[in-house]
């Protein structure tokens, strides 16, 4: 067993877990933060995306022990302090960038990661950045719109109909 402690969404947490405990399992089972999802077993779908020390990682492909001492951000910590949706979350709702919602936490976290490093991405940048996030419902069109909108760019030119 490994003792570990980390900050999750600004709060200090600790645990005593088996070495084989994945970060996603620690979040979901030990901390009951079930917003981070498991969608595959080959580290490709991105439904498990969280931020560790400020960068996006796939929490299904990281041991909880590797995050010892780290600053972890999950979907549950993204809303504003007053509980309202943050800019990215609001953009996804405004532009119907989600349907079943299962890939959505990963999409939001990946988008936050993108906009931190590239505040005004173009469509190709957005699609390329989401290479590691699979959605089966939306066909990505509205996700691209949502990300562009979240960056403050004009999406009216991004026509749907």
């Amino acid at each position: 067993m490994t003792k570990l402690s980390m900050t999750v969404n600004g709060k200090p947490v600790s645990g005593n877990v088996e070495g084989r405990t994945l970060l996603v399992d620690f979040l979901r089972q030990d901390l009951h933060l079930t917003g981070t999802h498991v969608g595959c077993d080959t580290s490709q779908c991105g439904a498990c995306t969280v931020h560790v020390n400020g960068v996006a990682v796939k929490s299904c492909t990281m041991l909880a022990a590797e995050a010892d001492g780290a600053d972890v951000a999950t979907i549950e910590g993204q809303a504003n302090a007053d509980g309202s949706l943050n800019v990215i979350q609001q953009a996804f709702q405004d532009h119907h960038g989600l349907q079943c919602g299962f890939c959505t936490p990963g999409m939001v976290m990946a988008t936050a990661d993108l906009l931190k490093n590239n505040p005004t991405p173009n469509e190709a940048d957005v699609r390329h950045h989401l290479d590691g996030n699979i959605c089966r419902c939306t066909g990505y069109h509205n996700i691209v719109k949502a990300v562009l909108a979240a960056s403050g760019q004009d999406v009216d030119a991004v026509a749907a109909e």
Partner: protein
Amino acid sequence: MPKDSGIGASPKRREDIRFLTGLGQYTDDISLTGETHAVFARSQVANGIIKSIDTSAAENMPGVLAVFTGDDFVDVGGNPAGWLINSRDGEPMKEPKRPVLAHGKVRHVGDAYAAVIAETAEQARDAAEAIEADIDEQPAVVDMKSALAGGALVHDEIGTNQCFDWGWIEDNRAATDAAIKSAPHVTTLELVNNRLVPNAMEPRASTGVFDPGTGDYTLYTTSQNPHLTRLLICAFVLGIPENKLRVVAPDVGGGFGSKIYHYGEEALVLSAAKKLGRPVRWTASRSESFLTDAHGRDHVTKIEIACEKDGTFLAFRTETMANVGAYLSNFSTATPTFLHGTLMAGNYTVPTLYVNVKAVFTNTAPVDAYRGAGRPEATYSLERAIDKCAQELGMDPLALRRKNFIKPDQFPYAAAAGLEYDTGNYHALVDKLEELADLSGFEARRAATKATGKLRGIGVNTYIEACGIAPSNLVGVLGSRVGLYDAATVRVNATGNISVMVGAHSHGQGHETAFPQVVADMLGIDEGSIDIVHGDTSKIPFGMGTYGSRSLAVCGSAVVRATEKIINKAKKIAAHMMEASEQDVEFSEGQFSIAGTDKSVGFGDVALKAYIPHNFPIEDIEPGLEETAFYDPANFTYPAGAYACEVEVDPDTGKVTIDRFTAVDDFGNVINPMIVTGQVHGGLAQGIGQALLENCTYDENGQILSASFMDYAMPRASDLPLYTVDHSCQTPCTHNPLGVKGCGEAGAIGSPPAVVNAVINALHSGGHTDVTHIDMPVSPARVWAAMNS
């Protein structure tokens, strides 16, 4: 009504709040006190005789509470086939038993033959590995043609690998054969409709609970239709009385058909929960999903189109082998027959046609309905062959279609495949497509692409589909063992807000937002005061669930009927409150009034009165304001569309890039345009995925070669373009109160032929006119091979 609410508006979705903040409750998110974990031992061979299973080592491992094998379920029913198909000779189809756990034989890689329940999932997995199964591997039956020719059997007791040999319409066969024989021109095309894995992003999960104090079972499960799941488990498999089983489908992360069906894991967790007196949970890994979720499509078809030299269609004839896999999944016999053969007339006035389908058992995962369910297969065969026919005749592909379209004044139209289409205007769809897709500008775009060294192609097609599934009487006659109605209860609460309990289930379709739009429109009250309840059999009336693009067409109609009953009763109450006669009561914008007077009462006042019935005519009206309606549709609904796809092909690598995609659809009336557009986007992505990327392949030993996202190419954002989508050409459905036709599957139905037509067109423009067809997925390797053969 204000523009941001009611029918035709696109209010933001309420369900987004929890999905965007990580507060969704999917089945694996739910944890229960004392829960245990199930892991299944699954066959690693495609066809094998189970000689013995030794579970003794597993039973003694740390944390293990129980081990089950097929022996534990011999007295329990099998997972039933939901639709009886008779062969052409009158013989009923073969229906071998599909047990909860494999017994006697394993019949596909992934077929579960044992289950371990332990305190933790890892302990269960450790123990599952310790189960010693002596399985005598047999030659695998994989290729359909070989399966029909004889040799190894998937189910020894039925003596054949042919499930049925179906003809439609048998009475037309002679006329069709004759028409083809004498036709001035016949186009023939052989094509494969590739096997797909639905791959909803949420893997399947089930948790079984048993309360020994009450004898009640609860099943939390990833289902598109909790009542149907309950019926199947209770009436056919475990024999639990329905009033002792509650099925809850909480938030579900996509289904696309794969979560319609009852699966053995559901029965197992319930049985295990009863035995242990503790909750038993199971969640599939993605690998397990690949092996065991019902796959889609997998047809091999030969189609013939007979026509005059001027392109007038004379007859269509198709022969199909349809893979049903190792066991019959619940709808697997309906998908290649009554959801496929009946669409073979397309949008056309062809006078006669004949469809033959042989359904084949193989040692592969069961195959069943997947987004489109039979209609993509029909559309693909027809629309690829029509393109080939156009090339052979030297005709423009759209002109050939227009020439044969059913005209707007011919509706209702009895098509040659037996369905009566209620309304449509295919000419208008194509006109709109020409405009939106700027078809006339294509040649200039082709020249511009050519200058970059690539080949540009354009593919067009139309489609019609039959959804809003389905009229019970009709499907009963055709062999369905269930009805296909739906239900809604509208419960007005004392303080005027409303709960609507619906049999439909939302796993991405936005029902929590769209259904209130309908009720708000009818009652003239604030949409925000209406809440939808779905997914829990203890709360909702018996509806058949969500698939087949039926939620609004069928359940939505039930909601309308129930709301009409509410209005009728409310009018009676209002009349009493205003001391007037019921006939004089008018209702508008949430107010009941008497014409020519200033008397009025609001809907809220009526609601309160209904629940506090003082000075109330209880001889004439019951207290309360809650009504239920069950709605059985009179017919299928018939959305139709016209699609155009433009591709660029890199001749050096064969890679196909979709440069633009235009989808013009007629869905009849549209309740929430934003949601409808989103449904089309998602369908297009799956259709393009089928056409270019996805393929579930088995080797000759029945091993899946594409059993993870490493080898099964899921469409990513960078594989797809922005889409142009239009649904302004509306011919409302004539037989349901909303006039809606349903939109959930159209994108996946109409898009594959457009893509493949475009690739062939591109190759032809580069001089490769000898290439008449490439089978899906049209991968870079296949394109390059076609160009260099």
